[in-house]
């Protein structure tokens, strides 16, 4: 994982998110306040614009700049959560000496753990955690069992999708959708959908290589 990799992923993610913008907007209008897509799009754009500033930096510094940009540029729940994710990843031990698959999965998992602390939401509460936690677990499991990376990533894509779909029938207990009680049922969580699309994009682009 390099700074270049991060920027390229952001560009790929931008395409995918833009292609699903209307769908994501609608999800947050149904059980939230409708801004999730704009928050995410603004965040991605800001990260991509960082390219000239961060491209020569060590990855820890680059990740930290991304974190600060996401944190200050997005706002809302997703800004705090994605900001926390990157802030934690930036603090990964020795990452400036190189980030291989194992390291990448390690820092991603630490990031997800921090996000979980920040939002105090676990699996089953109809949030992006229904995607992030299972994916982190799947990646960690795979790498600990020394499985083929393409296999692991392929599984992660499936796990993300399952997690995302699982939010549909859940009652929300965290986030804005929690205000709706029973009325949130039947709708996929917007943050789960956007996270799932990002994870799918990253994993598939890596698999392709």
């Amino acid at each position: 994982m390099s700074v270049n990799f991060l920027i390229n992923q952001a560009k790929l993610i931008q395409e995918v998110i833009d292609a699903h913008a209307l769908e994501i907007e609608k999800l947050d209008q149904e059980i939230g306040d409708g801004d999730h897509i704009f928050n995410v799009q603004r965040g991605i754009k800001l990260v991509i614009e960082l390219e000239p500033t961060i491209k020569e930096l060590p990855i820890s510094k680059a990740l930290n700049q991304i974190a600060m940009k996401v944190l200050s540029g997005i706002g809302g729940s997703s800004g705090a959560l994605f900001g926390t994710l990157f802030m934690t990843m930036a603090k990964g031990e020795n990452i400036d000496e190189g980030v291989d698959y194992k390291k990448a999965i390690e820092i991603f998992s630490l990031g997800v753990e921090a996000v979980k602390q920040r939002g105090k939401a676990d699996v089953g509460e109809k949030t992006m955690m229904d995607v992030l936690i299972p994916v982190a677990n799947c990646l960690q499991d795979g790498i600990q069992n020394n499985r083929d990376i393409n296999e692991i990533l392929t599984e992660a894509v499936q796990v993300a999708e399952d997690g995302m779909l699982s939010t549909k029938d859940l009652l929300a207990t965290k986030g804005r959708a929690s205000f709706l009680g029973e009325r949130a049922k039947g709708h996929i969580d917007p943050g789960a959908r956007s996270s799932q699309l990002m994870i799918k994009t990253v994993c598939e682009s890596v698999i392709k290589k």
Partner: protein
Amino acid sequence: MKKFMNTSDDFLKESLQGFGAAHQDIVSVYYDPNFITRSQSTKEGKVALISGGGSGHEPMHGGLVGHGMLDAACPGFVFSSPTPDQMLAAAEKVDSGAGVLFIVKNYSGDVMNFQMASEMMQSPNESVLTNDDVAVEDSSFTTGRRGVAATVLVEKIVGSLAEHGGSLQECKSLGDKVNKNSGSMGVAFSSCTVPAAGKPTFELGFDEMEFGVGIHGEPGRRRDKIKPAQDITNELLEAIIEDLKPNSNEEMLLFINGMGGTPLTELYLVFDNAKKFLDSKNIKISRSLVGNYCTSLEMQGASITLTKLDEEIVKHWDSKVHTAAMRWGM
């Protein structure tokens, strides 16, 4: 979408600029990161009150910055919570050494962003979390209830205590008390349109209302046919009273808040209808507020807030205040 705007990107900035220009005597507006402070700096030893939240609820919070109320406000994008850098920059500007009290409406985004700011800050700080919306069930296992119009009351009352030399802990305690003493519920006759979205957040039939609506157009308890004002008022008040359980002859503040698109004439009519109902329940309204204070862009509708009063709260409600949106005694 029909709005006075040029582009949705410039909506917030131009609105802030206009606000700053129209009220130079009261506030200063800073950009990148965006925050609003009083035009005069906090006097030494005074606890600094900072609130903030997504934009679109004006005059809350920027219009409530000034003597006797907030020291600073951090406006996020429309309906998106502000970010920690805004809060840190505002705190840096207004903290005079007696500490900072954050007044935060209970939404995941707001709570998390203010928490991060709080953790990043060096100086003493506390938070009051408002969650007065009785339309939502309260529970410690969930995000809980939404913070809505009572936030305005908390800011007024705690603002006065801070002005009178209350300590950070005292300010927090009073804020928590006012919040606990308050219950609110709203109803919407129309949706609002987020500028960036360009289309209404939700759709309502020509004869429908959203009962228990949130201040971002979040769905409420149920969708209902529109009814006479007295019926709507009674139902809102019943829900609030069931939550607050006031004693007979309890003295209360009655706050009829417009959502942005409902004119004063109708808000006063709701006040009248509310008073009739409360009279019949032997609840005494000894303080009141009517107007558009905690709005949802151009949404048509209103919310009702009741707050149980005691001597301390009344004293700090009555004390003088000088902000763009609320002013008396000076």
